[in-house]
């Protein structure tokens, strides 16, 4: 049974309950204050957030937006609260955002963070990033709470950076292309392709002109057959305005809206809204090669960085074109040089003139004619030899002087007649010209030699013929003149002869002169024919005997010939040998002014020769005259008469010779003739 509580107990219980309530009230107030404080803090955070914060109800409508979201959408809060969030999205974003909104409300798992576009009050689209979640309110209703960031500028910057990176990539690839591609057309085509493939530019085309403005080549990427009409136009010399302008200025030509500016350009139909054009000339130094055109999103056109990179590409391309041009020029020159060198190599190879090159005074090249000239079988026989080995010592000093002149002045030197030493040690005449040369990268001297052996031989022949002509003229002028003079003298005396004896004496003198004249004519004839006469076994002894008989008959004087013949000799000769002895005996008689004329004739075998010593008691021959006679035998330069010259020629035909001995009295002549055993 429930005991009844006392009043005091009840009061006590109430007091305790009131105290407890008061405590609860105090605690509640404390909590309320804390909550109020907390709300204030969070409200402040939300209201002052840099992110747009929103709460959307179950009906797509905004329940709450903060100031930042209002700024993002450029609407007042009143115009947002209670409105469907889809009204603020572009068409593309509406479906996406709504779909995720629904799914999220259903508790399906969808990405909490993603991007979409909102449309501001002024119609401008802004890219935003949303981070959303769902909560339930105190009434259990689902609420979508989201935070939105305007990332339009960041996205734009990212796009620009991406684009610039693409351009940088394009530059790198173009530079790689430049580094490896040495063909102009492939370079230009590759450059256009690279600029397009890296997605930096929509289209790219390059036109190259010659110095007179004529189209050299045009290439493109991203245009294909659409570019063909432009090529035809360029071929006609009709340049689009942007090309013409770009050719005339170093700055980039930027056309933001080609659709409204390039109305007359046939390329305009390839443009769409939002695409601009850049054109800049390809120039290196003072050389302008052509123009690079690109189409690019308009938003990038005004970017200085973009323009700078574009210019860099064209600069690199122009440098590459210059390099290719230089390389082409170098190759052309090299080819021409090679062709020229080959031509000259062939010329030198087949040249009849001997050619050699020496560097540091050593032979480094010889042609076949040079090998033949010096009697070398192989070039190696001469290569590496010092030039002093092939130049006659008499000419070495002058040749070295000439070489120094060539080296110092770099000029060729005139022809010089030189003597060279063949490999077999014999000498050979050559006429040499020399000039400076770079051979295998080293300074060298080119020497061209004309073998003048034949020329010299002909020259000697001509000189000999000239001297012979002079000799014969001299003989005719002097000897015949003298004979005529003698005949003339005897004729005068004959005409004035007072007695028979004088008359006979003068007639005899005339006859003798005529005989002398006859023998002079015979001598000249022998000189002409001696080399072709036949030689045979000939009796030397009898030849001497016949000549003695003839000389005694010719001179009306006392001539005593003392013969000292040791044996019978047969020699290889012919009748002209008689003439030799007669000439010598005649000289003995003529230059012995007193009678008797004594002539000693002695024979002696020496080796394979018979020496015939003929000595007289006449005037003798002075040393000077003797030297003249000997010299005249070879050179015909002295006036020594026909006698000794004829004697020498006849003996020469018989492989014999004669010598005028230096004796105290009279004259001694020694004839040597090969004997037949």
């Amino acid at each position: 049974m429930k005991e009844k509580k006392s009043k005091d107990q009840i009061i006590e219980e109430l007091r305790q309950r009131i105290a407890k309530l008061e405590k609860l009230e105090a605690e509640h107030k404390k909590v309320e204050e804390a909550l109020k404080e907390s709300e204030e803090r969070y409200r402040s955070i939300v209201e002052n957030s840099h992110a747009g914060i929103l709460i959307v109800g179950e009906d797509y409508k905004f329940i709450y937006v903060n100031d930042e979201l209002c700024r993002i959408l450029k609407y007042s809060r009143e115009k947002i609260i209670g409105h469907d969030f889809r009204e603020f999205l572009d068409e593309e974003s509406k479906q996406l955002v709504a779909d995720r909104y629904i799914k999220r409300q259903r508790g399906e798992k969808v990405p909490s963070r993603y991007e979409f576009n909102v449309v501001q009050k002024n119609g401008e689209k802004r890219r935003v990033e949303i981070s959303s979640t769902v909560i339930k309110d105190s009434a259990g209703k689902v609420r979508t709470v989201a935070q939105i960031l305007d990332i339009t500028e960041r996205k734009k910057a990212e796009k620009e950076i991406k684009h610039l990176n693409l351009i940088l990539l394009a530059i790198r690839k173009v530079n790689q292309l430049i580094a490896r591609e040495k063909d102009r057309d492939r370079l230009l085509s590759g450059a256009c392709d690279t600029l397009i493939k890296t997605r930096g530019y929509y289209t790219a085309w390059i036109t190259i002109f010659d110095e007179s403005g004529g189209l050299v080549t045009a290439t493109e990427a991203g245009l294909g057959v659409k570019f063909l009409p432009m090529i035809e136009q360029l071929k006609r010399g009709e340049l689009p305005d942007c090309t013409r302008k770009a050719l005339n200025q170093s700055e980039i030509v930027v056309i933001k809206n080609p659709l409204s500016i390039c109305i007359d350009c046939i390329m305009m139909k390839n443009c769409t809204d939002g695409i601009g054009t850049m054109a800049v000339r390809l120039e290196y130094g003072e050389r302008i090669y052509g123009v690079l055109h690109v189409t690019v999103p308009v938003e990038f056109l005004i970017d200085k960085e973009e323009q700078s990179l574009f210019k860099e590409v064209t600069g690199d391309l122009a440098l590459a074109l210059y390099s290719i041009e230089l390389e082409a020029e170098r190759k052309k020159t090299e080819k021409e040089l090679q062709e020229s060198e080959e031509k000259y190599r062939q010329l030198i190879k087949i040249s009849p003139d001997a050619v050699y090159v020496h560097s540091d005074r050593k032979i480094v090249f010889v042609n076949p004619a040079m090998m033949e000239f010096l009697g070398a079988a192989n070039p190696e026989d001469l290569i590496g030899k010092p030039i002093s080995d092939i130049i006659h010592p008499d000419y070495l000093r002058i040749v070295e002087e000439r070489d120094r002149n060539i080296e110092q002045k770099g000029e060729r030197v005139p022809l010089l007649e030189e003597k060279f030493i063949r490999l077999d040690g014999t000498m050979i005449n050559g006429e040499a010209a020399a000039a400076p040369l770079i051979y295998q990268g080293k300074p060298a001297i080119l020497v061209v030699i004309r073998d003048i052996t034949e020329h010299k031989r002909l020259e000697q022949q001509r000189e000999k013929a000239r001297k012979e002509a002079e000799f014969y003229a001299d003989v005719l002028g002097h000897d015949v003149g003298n004979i005529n003079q003698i005949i003339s003298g005897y004729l005068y005396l004959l005409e004035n002869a007072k007695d028979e004896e004088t008359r006979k004496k003068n007639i005899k003198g005339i006859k003798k002169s005529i005989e002398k004249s006859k023998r002079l004519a015979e001598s000249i004839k022998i000189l002409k024919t001696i080399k072709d006469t036949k030689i045979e076994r000939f009796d030397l002894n009898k030849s001497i005997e016949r000549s003695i008989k003839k000389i005694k008959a010719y001179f009306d004087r006392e001539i005593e010939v003392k013969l000292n013949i040791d044996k019978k000799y047969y020699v290889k000769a012919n009748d002209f040998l008689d003439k030799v002895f007669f000439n010598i005996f005649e000289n003995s008689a003529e230059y012995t002014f007193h009678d008797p004329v004594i002539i000693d004739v002695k024979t002696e075998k020496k080796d394979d020769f018979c020496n015939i010593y003929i000595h007289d008691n006449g005037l003798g021959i002075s040393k000077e005259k003797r030297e003249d006679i000997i010299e005249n035998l070879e050179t015909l330069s002295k006036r020594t008469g026909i006698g000794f010259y004829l004697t020498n020629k006849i003996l020469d035909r018989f492989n014999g010779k004669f010598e005028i001995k230096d004796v105290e009295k009279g004259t001694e002549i020694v004839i040597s003739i090969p004997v037949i055993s």
Partner: protein
Amino acid sequence: MKILMIDDEIMILTLFKDFMETFGHKVEIAIDGDTGLKKFKNTNFDLIVMDYRMHGKNGLQVSREMMNMDKNVKILFVSADSSVEKKAIEMGAVGFLLKPFYIDVLIREIERVGKA
């Protein structure tokens, strides 16, 4: 006159010697220049009759040496070569006879030089 005749043709020498001597001249002969010069050094001659072209020293060389020894020497050149006449006269010869000539021409020339 005392005459020295120099010629390398012995027949001319003997012929002219005989001929000139018939006219009263005293003639010595020399077969070449050196022989002539030797005689010239040893004897005073009124006239030198000399061939221009000879073996050894030619007439021009011989006459120069003679003129060095005696600048008044009288030299009459004889030669079959007409081209040397001018040279002979220029170097001081008193006369020049072109071979062949009639032998009396020589006598007349000798007389002309002797009177000069």
